């Protein structure tokens, strides 16, 4: 009996947490379909007007294109770096391994704004700021640790003899990497690619500092909000949320579920 009350209380708490996290997002989605200019209750009528205007806006379109290019490229670079680091950590022991790992794992421990300033200073010093690929470079550094962590976790689960078994059956080290390690890590790799893309797609601070004239979606959102209250922001926000949550859910499906199984 008391156990049942406990369970009910816990479920209630869980519900509250979800309400707390998701109600602003739900509000944003609701107001994005609201005909009134100001976010007030009672609501006006249903409209897709704000979506029509953002799709018609060339600047927003350009920002979306930039964001997609940046997040996809970042995802590929960061996942590759992450895999390479995770594998070398799994496979080899060498002097200076500590500093080697710190090199890739440190970025998330640095406050974003410091990171952004440093990136700007460095990139403009070498004359590389204000380019689309400046954002890609910065985002790859920023997201590679996540990819590394996810793939390393997967490698923890491998039977240490699996790779040796492949050599034993006649595959060279490269062949074994391709035919055993990569397939084994596939769920983690897909998952890492989704997560790094999502992080890059949403990232504002670094993008704002180093983007110059190549604005990404979060940067353009700030510009719109700075000007006035505009329900277009709700429409953009809803789409961004949809993109990110899709990527995160995909990451979960590919990875977390596999971890549970093995």
């Amino acid at each position: 009996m008391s156990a049942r009350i406990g369970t009910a209380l816990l479920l209630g708490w869980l519900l509250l947490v979800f309400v707390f996290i998701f109600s602003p997002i739900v509000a944003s989605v609701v107001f994005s379909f609201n005909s009134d200019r100001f976010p007030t209750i009672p609501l006006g009528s249903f409209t897709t007007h704000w979506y029509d205007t953002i799709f018609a806006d060339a600047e927003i379109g350009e920002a979306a294109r930039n964001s997609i290019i940046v997040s996809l490229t970042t995802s590929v670079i960061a996942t590759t770096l992450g895999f390479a680091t995770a594998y070398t950590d799994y496979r080899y022991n060498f002097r200076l391994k500590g500093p080697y790992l710190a090199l890739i794992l440190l970025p998330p421990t640095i406050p974003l704004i410091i990171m952004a300033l440093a990136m700007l200073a460095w990139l403009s010093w070498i004359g590389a700021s204000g380019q689309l690929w400046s954002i890609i470079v910065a985002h790859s550094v920023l997201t590679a640790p996540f990819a590394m962590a996810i793939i390393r976790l997967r490698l923890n689960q491998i039977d240490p003899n699996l790779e040796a078994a492949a050599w034993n059956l006649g595959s060279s080290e490269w062949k074994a990497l391709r035919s055993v390690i990569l397939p084994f890590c596939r769920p983690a790799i897909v998952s890492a690619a989704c997560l790094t893309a999502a992080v890059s797609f949403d990232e504002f601070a670094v993008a704002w500092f180093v983007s110059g004239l190549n604005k990404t979606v979060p940067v353009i959102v700030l510009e719109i909000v700075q000007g006035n209250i505009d329900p277009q922001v709700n429409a953009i926000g809803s789409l961004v949320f949809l993109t990110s949550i899709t990527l995160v859910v995909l990451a979960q499906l590919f990875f977390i579920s596999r971890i549970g199984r093995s």
Partner: protein
Amino acid sequence: MTEPLVTLSGVVKRFGDFTAVHRLDLEIGAGEFMAIMGPSGCGKTTTLRMIAGLDVPTEGEVRIGGRLMNEVPVHERDTPMVWQSLALFPFLNARENVEFGLRMRGVGAHERRRRAVEWLERLEIGAFAERNIDTLSGGQRQRVALARSLVTEPQILLLDEPLSALDAHLVIRMQGVLTRLQRELGITFVYVTHSQSEAFAMADRIAIMSEGRIEQIGQPREIYRTPASRFVAEFVGRNNILSGTSRGDAIETALGTFPTAGLPATGAPATLVVAADLVRIGRTPSDGAVPCTLISEEFVGATVTLFLEAVDGTELKVQIPERTLGELNAHAGGSFYLSWPADAGHVLAES
């Protein structure tokens, strides 16, 4: 032994300061079923891994078919191994696992499939060819692992404690499968185990290892009845080991003097080994019998091992058929008399 297929000469393997294998010499014949047996950490798995090329000897030579293998990389050796953990590829189904070695050798898809299915059927798991590894039972996985190693038709198969994860009744069945396969294929099996029953049931010859050294190599019966060292006598079977001094045709020990053949010269130290199944136990004293107190018993189906203690604290063991236990009226604390015929004793060569 026929022509040796594998020769290890003066092989040493060190990991940092730790020496896993000391100056090992071993010849394994073509078509021989060789077991390497010893407690964990004795260097038996390292020895196997050096044959496979997974570990490189620090000193000495490993030859297979006469060819010096020290510098030959793992994937060029054709020394497939059945791993203790099986190490099946979890992202491939049973058939694809078996095909792996053929795929690495560039065999075409059609041919690969045909040979893989043939091996799965030979090992009576043809019905599970398309099943995922994690839906197979322990015994079925074992067979997939065997098929995967044998599909490339190697001259030698290495097995690293392959049955240790199986239930007892499956172990017996797989022993049958392994010995049958080895005889049919006529190839060399090198089988590493810590299990006496596995090694004795299957092997043509057994090498007993301890602390990186081979203590004895011989046929199972030879090792069982005439252990070469104290270690082997303790590790194999159930032996009573008594230290004493030679009196020419008898050995003088703390428990009495026992007539025995094969002793060193009078006055030299000697060790007598008497297998527990050759010891007689009775309730009444007789000439030369050792008085003991029963401490405990170990029941293994048809035979029972009784553990007894002599007056000076020496532990002695007796193996008797279970059905004779009743008439003996054995219970802990009871007094008994142990004796053995003079030809039951075996004298260790070492001092």
